[in-house]
């Protein structure tokens, strides 16, 4: 009692101190993920301002220049500045990551909630559809979609979103099914709250965290898938720069001028690592069981 009384009397601690008491700042993986993701977003947003050269200007006399003061990461076969191309290419990756994350989150939450809350035949049919879509290898489905629909950024986003929405939906359904039989839902029904309002007020806030983690991971996959499709020549068409097609452009010079493909690949790796660490870290810190893991590990 006395301790809580003194805590109440003390001036309320600053935001920084309060933040430091949460598990978030102590989680090294989560912090690395936040830093990498923020960096990714900043680079994509400010890239055009930071870029020292135009990403499309060719200069054949200066082709395949090594990294130096003027061209930080050298130039490609057409003498275009690789560093500037990567800065501009970040936009495609960020756009794909954000769009796929948002679309798969929205559609997955709606489908998952409908299936988990309605039950019965609605659930059976939706679950069947989800399982069929999950049975396709994700990248293959995206590739087939883009192959038929044509290679544009919009089609890449749609393709990857179709492949990853079922993943969010199936997690959402599982979470909703654990919440539905709880007493507070029953109580809401008893006092006559409409179903949609119950979903909005009680089901969504209680089920979003794990689903957001899945959506983060699907955003990470989206960056990889976009890069893979670009690498195969099925993404955004050159000369517009993306991280994937910069790797492709550098491929013939991999041994003699490795910086082109290496730096583009490193950019993808950093962005995807950031998103994955973010998802993992949020899951770790949100899950009370993982957080309070006591070390009863008998092998230590």
């Amino acid at each position, binding site marked *: 009692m006395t301790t809580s009384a003194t805590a109440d009397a003390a001036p309320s601690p600053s935001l920084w101190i309060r933040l430091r008491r949460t598990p978030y700042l102590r989680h090294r993986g989560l912090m690395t993920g936040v830093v990498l993701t923020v960096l990714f977003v900043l680079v994509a947003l400010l890239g055009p301002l930071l870029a020292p050269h135009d990403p499309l200007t060719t200069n054949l006399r200066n082709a395949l220049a090594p990294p130096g003061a003027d061209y930080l990461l050298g130039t490609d076969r057409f003498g275009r500045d690789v560093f500037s191309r990567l800065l501009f290419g970040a936009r495609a990756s960020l756009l794909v990551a954000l769009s796929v994350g948002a679309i798969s989150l929205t559609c997955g939450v709606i489908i998952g909630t409908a299936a988990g809350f309605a039950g019965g035949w609605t659930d059976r049919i939706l679950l069947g559809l989800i399982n069929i879509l999950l*049975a396709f290898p994700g990248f293959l489905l995206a590739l087939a979609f883009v192959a038929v629909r044509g290679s544009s950024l919009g089609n890449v986003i749609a393709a990857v979103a179709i492949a990853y929405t079922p993943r969010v939906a199936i997690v959402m359904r599982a979470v909703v099914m654990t919440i539905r039989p709880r007493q507070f839902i029953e109580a809401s029904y008893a006092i006559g709250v409409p179903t949609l309002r119950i979903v909005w007020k009680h089901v969504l806030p209680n089920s979003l965290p794990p689903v957001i983690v899945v959506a983060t991971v699907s955003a990470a996959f989206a960056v990889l898938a976009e890069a893979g499709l670009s690498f195969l020549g099925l993404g955004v068409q050159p000369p517009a720069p993306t991280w994937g097609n910069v790797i492709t452009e550098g491929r013939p010079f991999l041994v003699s001028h490795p910086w082109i493909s290496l730096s583009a690949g490193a950019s993808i790796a950093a962005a995807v690592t950031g998103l994955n660490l973010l998802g993992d870290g949020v899951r770790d810190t949100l899950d009370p069981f993982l957080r309070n893991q006591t070390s009863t590990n008998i092998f230590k």
Partner: protein
Amino acid sequence: MLRYAASRLILVIPTVLGMVTIAFFTLRALPGDPAIAILGEFATEQALQDLRVALGLDQPLWVQFGRFVRGLVAGDLGRSAITRQPAMREVMSVLPPSLMLAGCSVLIAILAGLPIGMVSALRQGSWVDYLLMVVTISGISFPVFWIGLIMIVLFAHTIKLFPAVGAGSPGDLLSQAHAMVLPAIVLAAGGTAYIARLTRSAMLEILRQDYMLVAKAMGIRERRILWYGLRNALPPILGVIGVTFAVAIGNAILVEVVFSRPGLGSLIIKATFSRDYQLLQAGLLVLSISVVLVNLVLDLLYPLVDPRVRR
């Protein structure tokens, strides 16, 4: 046990039917006319009309779908628009190397991922755990084709250990195996990381259980306790091998392109760029159905590692 197997087998049928339906309608909803895609812009209207009739494109969509399903049951997926060979035969001729590559990579992923995850869990919080987790997060996050390119530079050009391209000379098993090493390892990177991370979290969960403490208190040797623990971790691990295989099949396309290996990946890319939709559809279906079948086999293996399913 038999009921379990039967229920799994029966579930495959609607899944495959659903996949076929989705594959058919996705690829039919294409903008533009396949007849023009095949004959070119300058074909006469008569020639176009003849080809549409020959391909059945003049029929309503549901008649086409019925015909497609009937053909599929008989193992006929139409003819490649470019080579005029049966699409099924073309796909089947390049299926073995792709399945072999994906299969080998999943095997490597299991053999490497399990011990990595075990060591990480047993040394939780140590620098070994930390290092292994950094390596595995990279395995999940790095683009597989980029890992492939780096491996080619390192182990085919700088150190001339493995061939950079190709699948070895035909008939020479040793050279084929030699050419398989690098691509299989590259393709296994993601799966290894995935299985290692899952093994780690499953083992951490198990190590906390009271029965492990009881076993320790009873004086059972550590190695034996570890064996009990691993057996309990197997069901969730077996559960993700199917996913690992599906991801490997998708990524195999990229790896085959990087290493210029013959296989379904190269075929699908070729079909894509020549707008050979019959071939693309056949490739998509055969690969996807093979993933479903692998998952079926894994499901049937489940009772072996999880006695609760046996009942």
